């Protein structure tokens, strides 16, 4: 592609030098923000092909560019709902190189739908 820069290091004028592998390895390879409180909708994303609304609080996130295997990091969170519900634990279930399942629980322990759900993938692409 035009405009490609090949470099092993980036140097700041004040903060020293950083290997570009830190940037490549440390950046999210996929992320998604979705609303699951009404009709499931993807708000914004990178490297996501679709979501599958399985049930209350259970959503599968499917990738376009697979990860190299299932051993990658998936930080997840959810925002307070407009109806006043407060999400508690966020669970990640059954990750594979092509997907993960984002589960949102209420503080009481039951599955709940939240307006704003966020998850991402940190690791290596296939």
């Amino acid at each position, binding site marked *: *592609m035009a405009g490609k820069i090949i470099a092993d290091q980036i140097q700041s004028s004040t903060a020293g030098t950083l290997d570009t592998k830190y940037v490549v390895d440390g950046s999210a*390879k996929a992320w*998604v923000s979705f609303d*699951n*409180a*009404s*009709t*499931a*909708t*993807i708000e914004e*994303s*990178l*490297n*996501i*092909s*679709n*979501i*599958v*609304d*399985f*049930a*209350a609080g259970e959503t599968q996130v*499917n990738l*376009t*560019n*697979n990860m*190299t*295997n*299932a051993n990658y990091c998936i930080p997840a969170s959810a925002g307070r709902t407009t109806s006043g519900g407060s999400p508690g634990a966020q669970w990640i279930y059954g990750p*594979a*190189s*092509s*997907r993960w399942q984002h589960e949102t629980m209420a503080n009481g322990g039951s599955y709940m*739908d939240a307006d704003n759900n966020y998850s991402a993938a940190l690791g290596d*692409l*296939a």
Partner: protein
Amino acid sequence: MNTPEFKGTHLFERLLWAKENLEPVQSDYRVVFESDVDSPASILVADPNWMAAAKQGGILPPVWVYWLLAADEAHPDFKKHTRGYLLHDTQPIGPLTEEQAIEYLIYKDVPRHVWENYNKGNKPNLIICNKSQLPKTREWRNAWSISDEVVSGNIETVQSIEYQETEGLDLTEMFSEELNRSKVYA
């Protein structure tokens, strides 16, 4: 805007180009399917950036690439993908209509046993509908199922999408010789 010549370019780089240059497309289509009798109906929602890339053409790999990678991952000795190059080096597919793109997603991410036999039971276990046809609230979400009323209004749509002649999505491309030789799904 024309798509750059992307064959051999890492798929992730192609997706970054698409996100920067294409307007997201929020599809009103929803794929509703029942993968087993004990679970509520699942609803597949296309990603807006992905849909824009699918309609643009020249970005996404053919769907059989995902099938081969899934077969690799299902192998007991799987450690990591060694054929990721298929995502990047296979000739990208051409532009799809929104309907063809939804069909592609069905083949990519709906369980095979669902779409292969969607119309062989007492009622279809997969339909494509408009999001306005879904319940307006999440009440009783874990009891949702495909109703006979919805089915009667949409089954022809499913059939027409599955069998229509396509320009961008070539079924012979999806079920490629390479896939047949590998007998992944034999």
